[in-house]
């Protein structure tokens, strides 16, 4: 027999813990007894693997956990959206130097107002994607006017 087994066997055989003043403890318990209620299968008489009915504490805990999951998902979605929107202007800046890109006029319909919130959001994102940023729009217009001026000068000469 190994030393570990020996220690465990000795512990099993040793005198079990005792309450130093059992009568006092009994009196204390009896004096603190509340009224009996009709509590049925609660958290504390349910075994570890068979908790069926939840107490209000558990319900609160479940609700908090659900809220936490929902807020985490919303946070992840918003962070994703933020990065997505941040990535857009750089693409536009690249296209601003491309002379082949035609100037796009802003849509005649300024706001997306119809449809479900998801449709409105998708419409907004589409519009945002279509519209070049203000800076690149100005730059393109300046380039355009400079080219026109050069053209005029060449004609005069």
């Amino acid at each position, binding site marked *: 027999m*190994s*030393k*570990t087994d*020996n*220690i*465990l*066997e*000795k*512990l*099993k*055989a*040793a*005198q*079990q*813990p*005792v*309450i*130093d003043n*059992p009568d006092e*403890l*009994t009196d*204390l*318990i*009896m004096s*603190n*007894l*509340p009224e*009996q*209620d*009709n*509590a*049925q*299968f*609660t*958290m*504390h*008489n*349910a*075994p*570890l*693997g*068979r908790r069926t009915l939840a107490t209000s504490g558990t319900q609160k805990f479940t609700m908090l956990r659900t809220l936490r999951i929902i807020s985490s998902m919303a946070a992840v979605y918003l962070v994703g959206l933020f990065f997505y929107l941040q990535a857009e202007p750089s693409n536009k800046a690249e296209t601003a130097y491309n002379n082949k890109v035609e100037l796009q006029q802003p849509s005649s319909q300024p706001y997306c107002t119809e449809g479900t919130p998801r449709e409105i959001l998708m419409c907004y994102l589409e519009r945002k994607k279509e519209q070049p940023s203000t800076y690149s729009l100005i730059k393109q217009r300046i380039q355009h006017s400079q080219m026109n001026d050069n053209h005029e000068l060449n004609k005069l000469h």
Partner: protein
Amino acid sequence: MISDIISRCQQGDREAFRWVVETHQRMVFSLALKMLCDEEEAKDMVQETFIRVWQSIRSYDPQKTFSTWVYTIASRLCIDRLKRVRRIVALPSDEMALRRFATDGDNQLELENREWVSIVRTIAEGLSDKQRLVFTLCQLEGLSSAEVEQITGLDARQVKSNLYVARQTIRKRLTDLGYE
């Protein structure tokens, strides 16, 4: 006889319940002391357990053994308490108690409560709450696997695996302390 007393308790007889407390409080105290490793906490746990027993005794199923049912409530409360308190860590002085106990030739040694606390705190350090419960019930309280299954709600395989891991952890701990 016990069934008569319980049915009296179910009808609100406090004197009958006093008998229940007197006969079962040592059993609950023993489990709580080994689980929580604190004498005052263990006494609080005894009180809390019997208040729960009193409150829910009407839902007691006579098909089950009464002491097993009381153990179930006490175990549940101990696990809840363990989740709230800090991790149980052995103190440097605890090892002395274990060394004295291990080297003593007497196999039916009398242990004081503080010695129990020191020994359990040393050997069971690092066990999860579930492993600690299964180890305490099976190994230190000497309950059968069937009783432990009923108390914890775990199946036979889970009880066996928790006990195995607990024993391996304790073996490693004792080896580290130079007991192998």
